[in-house]
């Protein structure tokens, strides 16, 4: 067994070759990190197009999210969810509600609050404010939160706090309610995705 005390020449005073070896390992780390970040962005930015001629909307949503085809009794026309997430799946949803000429977008939000307060635990409206779409279209935005108590038979999950946003905009004789719901702990990250979704949305 060869025992060599290289403490002084290899670690405290490396040769130029050894020094370069250490530097190249650091460079490899930086390249690996940048490559993976690039692959992450490329993977997460893949999108799928959704078009509904009847309602007149076209949307781009993340390619790996689950598109929920609505039944006749559903109160929405489009819903996608990130089923890969743990906890509450991040949801983008669009509902189309017929309105009369003098209806205010605010009254739609109040109606949603009344309906959800009956079915969702600890439902709170946090903020209501005007919202400006990119195409000079005025809407209204409401922030809300509640506790999701839905049980999952496969996990020992505790109820989770979710936060969300409703954006209501009047289009012709109907109001479009664009909803975003996410686990509160990951709200900020997911809201960035929702902003991209809104930018791509046309109606």
């Amino acid at each position: 067994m060869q025992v060599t005390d290289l403490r002084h020449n290899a670690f405290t005073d490396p040769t130029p070759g050894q020094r370069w070896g250490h530097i190249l390992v650091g460079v490899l780390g930086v390249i690996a990190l940048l490559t993976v970040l690039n692959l992450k962005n490329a993977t997460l930015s893949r999108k799928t197009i959704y078009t509904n001629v009847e309602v007149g909307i076209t949307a781009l949503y993340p390619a790996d999210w689950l598109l929920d085809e609505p039944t006749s009794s559903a109160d929405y026309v489009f819903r996608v969810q990130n089923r890969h997430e743990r906890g509450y799946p991040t949801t983008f949803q669009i509902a189309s509600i017929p309105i009369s000429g003098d209806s205010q977008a605010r009254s739609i939000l109040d109606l949603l609050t009344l309906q959800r307060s009956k079915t969702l635990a600890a439902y709170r409206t946090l903020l209501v404010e005007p919202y400006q779409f990119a195409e000079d279209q005025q809407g209204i935005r409401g922030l809300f939160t509640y506790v999701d108590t839905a049980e999952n038979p496969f996990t020992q999950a505790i109820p989770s706090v979710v936060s969300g946003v409703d954006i209501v905009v009047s289009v012709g004789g109907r109001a479009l309610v664009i909803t975003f719901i996410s686990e509160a702990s990951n709200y900020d990250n997911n809201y960035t995705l929702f902003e991209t979704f809104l930018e791509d949305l046309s109606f």
Partner: protein
Amino acid sequence: MRYNSITPTSVEDLIYPYRRVWLTLNLIATSLFVIALVFQLIGNRLPYTQLGKYLALLLPFILWVIFSFLGELRARLPRHGLWHTLLFTLVIANGIVIPVLYDVLNVPAWIHENTFFNKILIHGLSMSILPSITTYSILVYLGRALPFKTRLDLLAHAEVIAIAFSSVDGLHYLLRNQPTLSSLTLYLFGTTVLYFISSIFAAYALSELVFSQQSRFFPVIALGLGSFMNGFIHILKSNFTNTKLTLSTSAPNFLIGLVVSLGGIIAFSVVLSFLMRVAEQRQALQTSPEKTI
């Protein structure tokens, strides 16, 4: 205080007075394999206790103390500074490595969208190579203060680094996901093997550069190849342990997945221990005064 025995020292101790690192490393991996297997078989019948999960989290560390640390105490020439390495790595792992892997890159959240070969590439470039490079850097840094005299000294410290990574990773997993006990032990086995493979490649790459005066490109090549092989083992294991949805059954082949992981660490240990031994013998021949070549 340490007393010398009055009985004659065994011949084996005179030939090799250190703790056998390859053996203890594989013993830890095998013990975790058995524990994960047992919990998979009986896990669903166990009561839900948070304390039990936190105790399970200590499994890699406890096994390291039993097999490695106590082994060092029994060895004629124990290695020093293992606790320093452990504490230093715990800080680095909790402050840098695990946040980068799970908050910045968050690979597990999006890797599934790729094909098998892309998954190996992504895993190799992230979950495998970054711990490898961190282990390498920690060893280089600690080498200024600790007496690394043989190749296996580096491996012994790399083993501790892997244990620290695995423990911190397991703690983050537990706090994030609240898994069942059986899932936690399965995760601990998978991550411990992952970090063991990363660490042994880092120790091998550094030992060749330092002790064999290899080319400056050697560590990069060794770490790169090692990481892709590590990625291959891990993705193969994940494909087996994840549930397959078929018409007849939805049971996961977790046993095959566990065996793939265990086989991976044993195979890498055998190959790298052989390479290290050959390098050591070559170095001994070169420096021997009775060199005849």
